[in-house]
């Protein structure tokens, strides 16, 4: 009885977050005149954004499918590109590093590959969410649905594609004889953390990018530069030997996800001070909270600039 009541209550409340709530069309005697686009308080945005996503999950799933299908269209190799692209990149970095510093580690090429995969998940998620409004001008002008869906689908698409790239660890495990076990779960977790860091930061700047496209160019630079201060071509262990430099570099929240994926492949749990894990996750959560509030507050004004 109580359960039933909760179910009905929550479904009505949930339904309100859908962009075409069904309760409206079913009862014409429903609510009276309502103000179009009345906003929920910005303070609640971090939660309502997530709820909106669940309430519109059918739309979100369809949009993600569209993005993924469109990504490797007209290619002979198709989804194999998700693996080929990071592999080719790592080969280039591997050569570069050997030329510069000699061979530091027998598995160095593998660590670079993992670094490239996790970092590009962050970089692409960040760029995708920053450009999510300005890149969907046509759709924004012609249909209305909660705009948070644009950056979220862009980032989810990236996470799915990165998960596909991460399948490359299977041949690596077989070739190098890494342990095969539960620790591998840290790879998808680290990818999600990287994507989450990306969207938080991206949400803050997505509305601004509608107003002035400079933001996009600035972020393209940030992603390129961030590559070097994140442990992509180097590892956490290398940084530890460098004294002050190593300590400074650990303030970068991307150190944790990349190192996490590498340690997962090695077959151990994250071998870093637990504080840095909390730091990185906390960073992501704070970015999400700030990002959702900023996005919620300015998104509607910003689309007028498109």
């Amino acid at each position, binding site marked *: 009885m109580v359960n039933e009541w909760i179910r009905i209550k929550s479904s009505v409340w949930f339904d309100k977050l*859908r*962009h*075409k*709530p*069904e309760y*409206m*069309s079913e009862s*014409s005697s*429903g*609510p*009276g*005149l*309502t*103000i*179009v*686009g009345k906003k929920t308080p910005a303070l609640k945005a971090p939660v309502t954004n997530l709820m909106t996503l669940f309430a519109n999950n*059918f*739309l979100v799933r*369809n*949009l993600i*499918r*569209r993005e993924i*299908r*469109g990504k490797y*269209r*007209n290619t002979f190799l198709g989804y194999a590109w998700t693996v080929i692209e990071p592999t080719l990149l790592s080969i280039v970095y591997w050569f570069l590093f050997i030329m510069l510093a000699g061979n530091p580690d027998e598995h160095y090429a593998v660590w670079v590959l993992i670094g490239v995969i996790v970092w590009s998940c962050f970089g692409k998620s960040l760029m995708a969410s920053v450009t999510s409004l300005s890149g969907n001008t*046509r*759709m*924004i*002008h*012609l*249909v*209305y*649905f909660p705009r948070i869906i644009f950056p979220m689908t862009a980032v989810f698409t990236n996470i799915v594609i990165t998960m596909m790239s991460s399948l490359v660890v299977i041949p690596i495990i077989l070739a190098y004889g890494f342990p095969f076990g539960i620790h591998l779960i840290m790879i998808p977790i680290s990818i999600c953390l990287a994507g989450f860091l990306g969207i938080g930061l991206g949400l803050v700047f997505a509305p601004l990018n509608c*107003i002035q496209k400079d933001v996009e160019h600035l972020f393209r630079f940030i992603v390129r530069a961030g590559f070097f201060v994140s442990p992509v071509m180097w590892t956490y262990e290398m940084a530890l030997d460098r004294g002050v430099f190593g300590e400074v570099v650990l303030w970068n929240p991307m150190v944790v996800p990349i190192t996490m994926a590498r340690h997962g492949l090695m077959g151990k749990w994250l071998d870093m001070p637990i504080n840095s894990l909390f730091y990185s996750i906390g960073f992501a959560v704070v970015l999400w909270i700030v990002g959702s509030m900023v996005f919620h507050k300015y998104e*509607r*004004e910003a*689309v*007028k*600039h498109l």
Partner: protein
Amino acid sequence: MSEVVISVENVVLRFPRRRSLVSLITGMFKKTKRTFTALDGIDISINKGEIIGIIGTNGCGKSTLLRIISGIYPPDEGTCKVKGNISLLAGLGTGFSAHQTGKENAILYGSILGYSEGKIIDKLPEIISFSELGEFINEPIRTYSAGMKARLGLAVASAIQPDILLIDEVLGVGDPTFKKKSTDRIMEMVAEAGTVVIVSHSFGMLSDLCDRIILLEKGNVVSEGDPSEVIAKYHSLAKKRKSGGDE
């Protein structure tokens, strides 16, 4: 019948102009406005069951007004209130993905328009038969002609029965036979929907269909009322503007 379902109260909408460093410097020497006023204090109230036409020259704010009502733009001043479910028919087939099949796109477009999953699955056979695509429904959309895409778009969009239907120049797509069918379908939707707002340039159709026509000019409501009178007013305004331009 006199229940108000759309109430636009003193709505002002200004579009910002894009600025760059160069324009900022040159702007110091000449006066340019920073914003463009698209809607300048619009007051409209539409009752349940009315069919309203909106006319006006290009750029007078017709489409912008529909976008305000459907929630795409927030008004800068004033409020817009509605009662019931709104559906905006504009740019049929927005968001189609060229590499998915007709059926997948029907589901995608349906979800963009706000169908729930169960509803679109229910409506799918109806959509497919209305679109008359036959075998093509399982082919990727990139193989479709423009008319076929429009047909699929209309088939999906018209499967909704909203309380308030906003139509922005989407009448008459496809070949002549389908054009007839699509016009009939939209008429059917108009008959089913409680309230309809149509933006169009085909005055013949508007005067047949509408209870009331609103004439917009530079973001203001210039005239409002009986279709034939307002259309006459539009023509006289156009004539005046033309002669004004000649002088």
